[in-house]
């Protein structure tokens, strides 16, 4: 968080998980269609409570900010998103 000690910067490269690449792709496509601006993403990432900000990974923050942006723009509803998340959880749970 801004202005607070954060320890050393880890300058290592790592492979991205498929879901992380999908979040990135989603962001690019939504921006290209005019549904997302970097400023709204920043606003939503900066609005995360400190404990959430600290515990979420980089792309988890992105995913959260994309969802918030789409909710704010009225492109999706919380109910829609919640139901899809339930579906996915059920599917993933059953598959493992």
């Amino acid at each position, binding site marked *: 968080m801004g202005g607070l000690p954060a320890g050393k910067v880890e300058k290592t490269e790592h492979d991205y998980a498929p879901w992380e690449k999908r979040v990135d792709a989603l962001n690019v496509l939504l921006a290209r269609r005019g549904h997302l601006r970097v*400023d*709204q993403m*920043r606003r939503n990432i900066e609005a995360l409570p400190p404990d959430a900000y600290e515990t979420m990974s980089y792309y988890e923050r992105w995913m959260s900010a994309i969802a918030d942006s789409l909710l704010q723009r009225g492109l999706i509803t919380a109910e829609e998103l919640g139901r899809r998340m339930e579906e996915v959880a059920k599917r993933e749970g059953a598959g493992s």
Partner: protein
Amino acid sequence: MSAPSGDAAPARFRPGDRVVVRRAYPPGHVRTPWYIRGHEGVIAQALGAFPNPEELAYARSGLPAQPLYRVRFQQRAVWPGYAGRPQDTLDIEIYQHWLEPAPVAAR
């Protein structure tokens, strides 16, 4: 860089002008650093006009575009007890609506 147009606010400042950052603390998505508000600096460069990020953050147009400037501050004036070299400077990109002309008496 965008040329001045009907969708851009007219530029009020030129390189070399002395300015003061507004001492305002509104809620919302503000990019002007907290620590620089109320400080005096000099316009180093005019960067063109861009849609206002404070508005873009809420999915609005951000128009008219706001002129953006690179403003130069003296480090020792910004940080109490600054331990670096006395001539050190700090450049920050600040939108025009956060800037006012510096009072003449301040020179």
